[in-house]
């Protein structure tokens, strides 16, 4: 139904992508519960160029979601800095962050998180109407256009609750793009979908990234999808384990990519990852016995 567009990469795209959209340096987050401190991010550094599509991989509890919350300005880091579009976001007030989020950041969540009392069109329109205070004609037209683009033109006025999982996620993708953000953050966007819907949703995100030049950062456990991204960032134990800039080997050879990832995931300077696996194995045996 939705075909991945294999458009030719423009000549200057490499230059555009060299312009950093997001610069993260020594970002730390420690959760404090009374006297108990839990360091989750322990000094994260990376840069994402404008218009890139980056996958973030890492085991559960590695700090991916926390990192996405911080990059999405929903949470303040304990220390460190991150700059987006040349602005130091750790210095902004809550109100400024809310405005910034509205205009520059789009979110896609694992459980689609549409507002159940609103139609597909209203859900997409919400970030815009909520900011300007009313539904504008231009806003409605853009929302309808986006929904048409994600193949939902027949469901514009369906309540969110009447849509299937895959449909909801497509609406969520359209909503994330409503205010023409510079960055879309997707937290396990395909984690709750079956293979077919996951592929469709991912293809859609790739198309939108190419068409609009929007930067995508998505956390995923799906190595096959991660392999189709231009670049992958590995988070383990609160730090970027390995940063590799690779041009995607394109979608026709996912298996070869998969091998590379499996290979890299074994490489672990600290041995943390292996120990984690071993521990999990012990616990499993313990509960079985």
């Amino acid at each position, binding site marked *: 139904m939705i075909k991945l567009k294999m458009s030719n990469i423009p000549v200057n795209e490499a230059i555009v992508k060299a312009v950093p959209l997001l610069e993260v340096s020594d970002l730390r987050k420690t959760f404090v519960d009374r006297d108990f401190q839990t360091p989750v991010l322990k000094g994260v550094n990376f840069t994402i160029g404008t218009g890139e599509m980056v996958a973030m991989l890492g085991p559960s509890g590695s700090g991916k979601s926390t990192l996405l919350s911080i990059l*999405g300005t929903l949470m303040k880091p304990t220390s460190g800095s991150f700059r987006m579009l040349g602005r130091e976001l750790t210095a902004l007030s809550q109100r400024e962050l*809310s405005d*910034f*989020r509205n205009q520059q950041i789009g979110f896609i969540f694992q459980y689609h998180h549409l507002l159940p*009392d609103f139609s597909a069109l209203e859900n997409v329109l919400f970030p815009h109407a909520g900011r300007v205070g009313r*539904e504008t004609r231009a806003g409605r037209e853009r929302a309808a256009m986006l929904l048409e683009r994600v193949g939902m033109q027949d469901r514009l006025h369906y309540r969110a609750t009447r849509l299937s999982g895959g449909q909801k996620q497509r609406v969520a993708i359209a909503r994330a793009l409503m205010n023409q953000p510079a960055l879309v953050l997707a937290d396990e966007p395909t984690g709750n979908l079956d293979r077919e819907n996951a592929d469709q949703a991912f293809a859609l995100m790739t198309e939108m990234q190419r068409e609009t030049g929007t930067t995508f950062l998505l956390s995923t456990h799906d190595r096959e999808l991660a392999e189709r991204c231009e670049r992958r960032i590995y988070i383990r134990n609160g730090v970027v384990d390995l940063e590799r800039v690779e041009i995607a080997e394109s979608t026709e050879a996912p298996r070869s990519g998969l091998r590379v990832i499996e290979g890299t995931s074994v490489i672990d300077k600290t041995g943390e990852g292996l120990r984690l696996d071993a521990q999990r194995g012990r616990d499993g045996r313990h509960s079985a016995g």
Partner: protein
Amino acid sequence: MRFDLKVALRYLLSNRLQSALLIGGVAIAVTVFTFNAALINGLAEFQIARVVGNSSHVTIEPAKPMPAVAPARDGAERLVVSQRALERRAQIKQWRTVESIVDTIPGVTGVSANILGTGLVSRGQQTLPVTLKGVEPSRLSAIAPIGDAIVEGEPQLGLNDILIGRRLANDLGIRIGQPIFIASDQGRERSLTVRGLYATGVESLDARLAFINLATARVLFNLPDGLSEIEIKLSNVYMARAVAKQLADTTGLEATAWMDKNQRLREALEGQGSSGNIIKMFTLITIVVGVASALLLTTFRRRPEIGIMRSFGISENFVLSVFMLQGALIGIIGSIVGCLLGYGFSVFLANVSGGRLPVDPSLGQYDVALLLAAAASILAAVWPARAASRIDPVEAISQ
């Protein structure tokens, strides 16, 4: 339409049962409020009408002459025992000026210049004390509707005429056209003809009062150019105090409002009023508690959604106003329904009781009820709305 209003409406419509119950709760509270107001105010009007209908609203009387006291020199204190000067008769001498002042006051519907005095009425061996009220014949009904209350004879007051209550006539055993003998407390006597008998239903008027011509009263009470009192009737009885104060200030005479002449009535009305206010206060508290608890529940239920909204940069103020608007909508719709119910219930009871229950549907204080109920609902929404606007999006989304 404002988008926050649209969202608020959508939320109210999405949970119709809860919204209907909330609006119903506010409506019932407002029904109680307005019916209570219609009953208490109707009762007060009924009592006031009975008292005030037959008496003046503002009465101007001569100032009580007090002896002048010479001021002390050099700031020294001086102890003075003063006694009211009794050597002169209290009377309003400058009454023409006073009447011209009264004419300039808006809302005055009737004025009567009277001479009041005590006298003895006798017929044969029967002698009874009466209050004689000398009035201008044209203004006989300016204060009490004596003209309408005439049950026998004519409401005419010639120089030799007298109008007496039917009770007094019965006590004296006298009929229309018969003469009676009047002796005033100034020692003057006169024979007058009974021209009419009235029955107002008020004991003090029917048994102890008689009306005579003002000119006759001047002779009987030896007041060639003074008056005992000027009575004033107002279109709005509650303006009496303000008018009395204005008249006292401008004329230097004593002016008393009806409520200050009827201490007991005033106390009764105040008692009823404050018990009514307690009921009204409880209805408002009911609204605040009901709306606040329901909206707070809604806030908790919608935490993840609010988190989502915040995640795409919807401002705290937007969330705040969505919940405040829900409170306002519940309050406004509920109180409009409540006002209609309260009015309907009052009309129903007033009709069913056939006037025995002094409910006055027009005195339901609907504007006050509407305003207070809406304000109470908005106030009740403040807490839930603030709670909603402060929801941490990360925590709410991960729920």
